[in-house]
């Protein structure tokens, strides 16, 4: 596909700062990628700890561990941290590491902005987490912060919440601009649009989604801020506003946001499945078109989150049908992955195990999403644990599994050593089993009528909640195995790997040395 160029010996022509200064001042895409990934992992553990509090409280009926107000803070901050602190930064970290290496660019297009877009993130989350220690506690209105619960009826910590979301938004927008500019301008000669690896394609489309909707989120939180503190009435009927308008604005951001968290995952799976099938990706072009259609459709389905708010029938029908349509391009993706495996030569290394688990579990989450699209039935599912099951299947066993697959897939390229495969397999099997014990029974209690976001529940839900909590604790503990694997890998323990690392791997990033040198592709490769 291309000629590899070796630049492993260029490191010493800069005076690179060492120690902490290296990380604070770095403009290197690999360093920044590493920072993003570690940050995301720490946030994953923090948000996970909050999930453990939630599951401990729900282990049995009655209030045992936390009071309801604190429980609501846990569900709220768990959601915010997992979405904005774990999944999104992890994907940005992967983009930083991989996009330049995949398109044959020396670095991201805007390296100083890259540094800044990472380094404002820790402050955003320090502000958010610090608000939990205020008198009255942190945000307790759900990560969707519906007005007027988040305005008239919220605590003073709302101001901190708004500020921290603004910072997260700025960081995401800058990251997205960087990805677009890099991909648009810095592809190696010969790397035409339809030769780009799918991870690059999906991230390009994701970046456009980010730029389109993060300002909408910023607008929504600003209106919440002014409604609460400055006397406006955007969401207050008494002043001529409308609380349901908040939901329209929020979900106009929120639905594309869902695809922001899954499109890069599609890209990752589309890289991994062909490698371990030793066969080219089936239907490359249709994958690109499917991703684009999903992104475009994501702008016209937002109100399927709002079927019970009292919309006109015509609007309900429109949003039902538009939502159902999304399953067509999503189906195409799944079919393409299966067709790629068909008559391949399959092996099951750790990244492939996670990718296969992704395909199965994401599809389950997608199918329950199709059920949720059917408006009359959604009236029964809405705001129950069925919804919780659905979005955790697509986000945990979907997005998070894809991130883990990606880390296992590219980690040997980053460190030059094979990770501890035995430990990684333990991580996989423990995660796979526990994630299903955790989320599958949620379908049952949701259908049986348990609402979301409640700290206590009727006795009929007791047994399943106990199992769910046990699954939750097991899944939480399993991630410590992942931590161990990553720490061992970062200490450069393990067998050295070849440049290609995996037998079937193809692409520019597999043609540079392992570990990837600090600077790569200073002279662009030529892609044939």
């Amino acid at each position, binding site marked *: 596909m291309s000629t590899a160029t070796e630049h492993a010996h260029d490191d010493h022509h800069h005076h690179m700062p060492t120690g902490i200064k290296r990380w604070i001042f770095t403009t290197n895409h690999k360093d920044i990628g590493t920072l993003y990934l570690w940050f995301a992992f720490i946030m994953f553990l923090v948000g996970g700890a909050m999930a453990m509090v939630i599951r*401990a409280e729900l282990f*049995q009926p009655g209030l045992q561990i936390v009071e309801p107000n604190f429980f609501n803070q846990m569900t709220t901050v768990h959601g915010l941290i997992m979405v904005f602190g774990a999944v999104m930064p992890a994907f940005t970290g992967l983009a930083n590491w991989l996009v330049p290496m995949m398109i044959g660019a020396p670095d991201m297009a805007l390296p100083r902005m890259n540094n800044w877009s990472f380094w404002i993130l820790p402050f955003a989350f320090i502000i958010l987490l610090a608000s939990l220690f205020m008198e009255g506690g942190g945000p307790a209105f759900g990560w969707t912060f519906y007005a007027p619960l988040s305005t008239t009826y919220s605590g003073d910590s709302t101001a901190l919440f708004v500020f921290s979301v603004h910072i997260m938004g700025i960081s995401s927008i800058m990251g997205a601009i960087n990805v677009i500019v890099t991909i648009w301008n810095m592809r190696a000669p010969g790397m035409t649009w339809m030769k780009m690896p799918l991870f690059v394609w999906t991230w390009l489309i994701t970046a456009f989604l980010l730029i389109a909707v993060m300002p909408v989120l910023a607008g929504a939180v600003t209106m919440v801020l002014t409604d609460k503190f400055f006397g406006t009435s955007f969401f*207050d009927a008494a002043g001529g506003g409308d609380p349901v308008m908040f939901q329209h604005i929020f979900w106009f951001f929120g639905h594309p946001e869902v695809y922001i968290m899954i499109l890069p995952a599609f890209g990752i799976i589309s890289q991994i499945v062909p490698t371990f099938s030793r066969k080219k990706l089936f239907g490359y072009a249709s994958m690109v078109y499917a991703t684009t259609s999903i992104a475009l459709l994501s702008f016209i389905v937002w109100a399927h989150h709002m079927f019970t708010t009292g919309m006109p029938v015509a609007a309900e029908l429109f949003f039902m049908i538009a939502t159902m349509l999304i399953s067509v391009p999503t189906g195409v993706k799944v079919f393409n992955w299966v067709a790629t495996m068909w008559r391949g030569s399959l092996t099951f290394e750790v990244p492939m195990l996670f990718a296969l688990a992704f395909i199965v579990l994401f599809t389950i989450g997608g199918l329950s999403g199709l059920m949720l699209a059917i408006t009359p039935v959604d009236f029964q599912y809405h705001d129950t644990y069925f919804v919780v099951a659905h979005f955790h299947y697509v986000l945990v066993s979907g997005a998070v599994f894809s991130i883990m697959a990606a880390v296992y897939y590219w980690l040997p390229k980053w460190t030059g050593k094979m990770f501890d495969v035995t430990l990684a397999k333990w991580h996989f099997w423990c995660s796979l089993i526990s994630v299903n014990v955790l989320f599958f029974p949620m379908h049952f209690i949701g259908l049986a009528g348990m609402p979301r*976001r409640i700290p206590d529940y009727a006795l009929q839900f007791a047994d399943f909640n106990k199992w769910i909590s046990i699954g939750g604790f097991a899944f939480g503990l399993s991630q410590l195995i992942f931590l161990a694997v990553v720490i061992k890998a970062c200490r450069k323990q393990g067998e050295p790997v070849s440049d290609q690392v995996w037998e079937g791997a193809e692409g520019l990033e597999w043609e540079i040395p392992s570990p990837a040198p600090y600077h790569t592709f200073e002279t662009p490769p030529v892609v044939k």
Partner: protein
Amino acid sequence: MKNTLYGVLGSLLSVTAFADSGAQKDQYQLNLSKGVTDISGQVYDLHMLMFYICVAIALVVFGVMFYAMYFHRKSRGAKPAHFHESVKVEIAWTVVPFIILIFMAVPAAKTLIAMEDSSKADVTVLVTGSQWKWHYKYMDRDLSYYSLLATQPEQIQNKFAKGENYLLEVDRPLVIPTGKKVRFLITSDDVIHSWWVPDFAVKKDANPGFINEAWTRVDQPGIYRGQCAELCGKDHGFMPVVVIAKDPAEYEAWVSEQEAIQRKAKEEEQKLLAMNMSMEELMSVGERVYNTSCAACHMPNGEGLPGVFPALKGSDMALNDMPAHIDIVVNGKSGTAMQAFGKQLSLKELAAVITYERNAWGNNTGDTVQAKDVNAVMNGQ
């Protein structure tokens, strides 16, 4: 925060203590219930149709995938094929799902249109949510009342054994007639709530400042239980919905009886204006009212939740400024969660609860507030 941490430690020790959750019905309910109305039956059928279609799709996709995982393994000597494109196949698996979708959308649209047609109702009930209770007003009758959680706090705090309908029981359920089309007008006094009875397949948000409509026609008499479905603050998990369906004659008798009771209570209230209640009576009534109407926010010990709900114990208003105290209880405080209790409680209850707040938890002002004092504030004197 500190309390929370102690709570965590304490409960970790007691996790094993409570284990008697057996003997309830529906312990292992896995699926949606069929419900008791024509609409809820249709919804159930749609749900099952969707479920079977999804299972069929999953079986086909995973079947092919697992077949490949087994038979096309490298360890079985599989050699990779070279195909990676087929326009025909791509078109097929775009068009076929599309047809399946149409097959799903048509019955769904029919049911939806029926669900949203609340015209020609026989009975109309205004349902108003507020933190954390429901209010029912029969629009064509002279009857309205609040419906509050009836589960004892001691059950929630694991001090008493939990009853069969734990968290799904209220003091005054909504009563509707069987065989009649009942229309619900749904709104809210504060944040967004959502009124949900699974057996009717009715879930509709209660939006402050706007009125939503829903309807049901229940054929079987019975008691149907649901919950608030939209996060509405601290006690979102503690505002159940209970509806009793009675046959029309019984319903009629019940409404007339309740109307008479409410009329009588209003007459009694006028008599109260001329008399004084004793401190003991005020305090005992006041404590009961406080625990059902005030304790959710201001807490049973009167200390509130710092930073969220203000304390009454030792507060300036409860110790000194009696007119302001009566005013805030009667009229509420706009822009905060403090509701106007003037329309929720009787004069006697208002007088009692204000007296209680001024004398409980060491507030010991010795003040008594009488019905006529409250009435004066209500009439703007």
